[in-house]
């Protein structure tokens, strides 16, 4: 109890024998696993003293489905649907990274057109995933409208996905060697229509939520993570970039064909500076109370990344070549003996697959490095001496999907 410092009359609160009503007591509060603001089945035990949280202990594993054990029993193309269910809000990205890992291990060439389609899908899914994160974060902090707006636009992306593969959540569309189907007729035009419709909406999001006075008060300066801690704890994605570290795998260790496209990587900036946005978009300034590495910055980077995903998709659509969309992959693909570790930039951070082949069609080991698993591990460090009301603000800004944490 003594590790909390109150500014007024500490003797009266703690040291006198007859503290009476002013005496405080520690209380363990269970938050979750079915709490609405824990984004799934995350259970956090809060050690509280009044409104102050002294310590949090996250308990995970409620959604553990042995995804890695399943990987040791299935062939890579059979494992693709399992990757859908890791981070179920960005299934395309999961398919993409796993396919890349298998292709690297088994040396499979991917047709040019398939690579382009993959980047379109990955970026569309990034927008869809960030829309959910954006809407749910508003919901966590008491704003209901963003959730509806976010899902309105996400619905259109899901329609586009439904056109190419028939599924709306677990696509299994990107497979080793290419993509499952070519784009249907008229899809490119529908996608362009969507981008034209969607880009101005991002400005609405900023007006609606990002620069809302109450929202800034709730999130600015809350849950500040230093760059040192972020790197030490293995944070990736927007959580790492919000701390001012310019680290995006699409730029730093480019995979697939990302090096062919121009885009900026937004990072956390001090008050008064402006985030990089594509030309023609209104400037996005950092408000006064914001600190580099706080919840507002983590939230805002997702909004800015949506601009750049739109910019990438436009470039890909302009350059989209014709040709095949499936490489030559044997039905029972034998994985050569060897190992590969490959990471890709998912909406929530770096998703990694460690695949070991042993000459048979089934890998000897598949290890999944979930970005949310590492991002969540910093929670006990961040949630020290914060208010209970700040816990949803911090957990929401880390944006966890428990399917991936628990695997």
């Amino acid at each position: 109890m003594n590790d909390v410092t109150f500014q007024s009359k500490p003797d009266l609160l703690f040291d006198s024998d007859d503290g009476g009503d002013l005496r405080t007591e520690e209380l363990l509060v269970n938050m979750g696993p079915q709490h609405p603001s824990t984004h799934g089945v995350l259970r956090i035990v809060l050690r509280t003293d009044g409104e102050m949280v002294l310590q949090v202990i996250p308990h995970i594993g409620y959604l553990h489905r042995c995804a890695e054990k399943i990987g040791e029993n299935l062939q890579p193309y059979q494992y693709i649907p399992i990757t859908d269910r890791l981070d179920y809000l960005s299934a395309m990205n999961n398919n993409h990274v796993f396919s890349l890992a298998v292709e690297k291990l088994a040396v499979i060439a991917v047709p040019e057109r398939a690579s382009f389609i993959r980047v379109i899908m990955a970026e569309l899914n990034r927008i869809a995933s960030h829309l959910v994160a954006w809407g749910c974060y508003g919901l966590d902090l008491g704003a209901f409208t963003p959730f509806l707006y976010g899902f309105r636009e996400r619905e259109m992306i899901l329609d586009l996905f439904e056109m190419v593969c028939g599924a709306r959540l677990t696509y299994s569309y990107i497979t080793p060697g290419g993509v499952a189907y070519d784009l249907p007729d008229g899809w490119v035009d529908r996608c362009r229509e969507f981008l034209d419709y969607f880009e101005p909406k991002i400005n609405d999001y900023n007006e609606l939520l990002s620069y809302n006075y109450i929202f800034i008060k709730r999130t600015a300066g809350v849950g500040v993570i230093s760059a040192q801690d972020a790197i030490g704890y293995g944070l990736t994605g927007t959580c790492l970039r919000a701390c001012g570290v310019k680290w995006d795998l699409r730029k730093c260790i480019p995979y697939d064909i990302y090096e062919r496209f121009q885009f900026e990587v937004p990072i956390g900036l001090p008050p008064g500076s402006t985030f990089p946005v594509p030309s023609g978009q209104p400037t996005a300034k950092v408000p006064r109370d914001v600190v580099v590495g706080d919840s507002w910055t983590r939230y805002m980077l997702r909004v800015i990344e949506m601009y750049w995903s739109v910019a990438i998709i436009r470039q890909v659509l302009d350059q989209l070549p014709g040709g095949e969309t499936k490489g030559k992959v044997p039905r029972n693909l034998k994985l050569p003996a060897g190992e590969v570790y490959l990471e890709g930039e998912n909406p929530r951070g770096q998703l990694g697959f460690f695949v070991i082949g042993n000459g048979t069609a089934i890998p000897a080991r598949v290890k999944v490095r979930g970005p949310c698993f590492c991002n969540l591990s910093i929670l006990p460090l961040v949630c020290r001496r914060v208010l209970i009301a700040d816990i949803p603000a911090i957990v929401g800004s880390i944006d966890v999907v428990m399917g991936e944490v628990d695997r």
Partner: protein
Amino acid sequence: MIPAETIERLRNRFGEAITSAVTDGLHPHAAVRAEKWHDCAKVLRDELGFNFLRCISALDLGEGKLAMVYDLVAIGAILNHTLPDGRVSDLSQCKCEFAVRVEVDRANPHVPSVADVWPAADWHEREAYDMMGIVFDGHPDTVVDADGTHPRRILCPDDWAGYPLRKDYEYPKEYHGIPCMVETGSSINQNDRI
């Protein structure tokens, strides 16, 4: 820094403790003896700049051997993220990947914890104990029970028996009275399936 250079510096420093090394191919790495791994980790972080632990994978190699694979990346040795004028150092040019492999006997699977070197290792090591039964000495979050002192389980319940990712793991028949279905293999009669 290319992997060959990293391996050479480690060899100069630790000599015999670097038992083998792969300098090229898809996954360049060095194999380190378990007893020297903690010292090696400090050198990797402080002198060679591998400040980011990406992943720890626990492997069951069979033949009485388990292994840990630590995937590292250097994302800029010096962090100047809080420059007063608001500039941020661009770390994107520094990209070196490396991996370390630590093999242990299944009969005595002890590896020193590196959670004090890279805090990210805390949860990864808990997972490696949970799934593969590797005990990390000096781990910050341990429990003492019938299995000895070991990191707290993270994905499975605390009273779970066995280590699911080992190749010889036997699926439990039940857990606290809840029957467990085994869907693969020949242990279930086809007629029993629903």
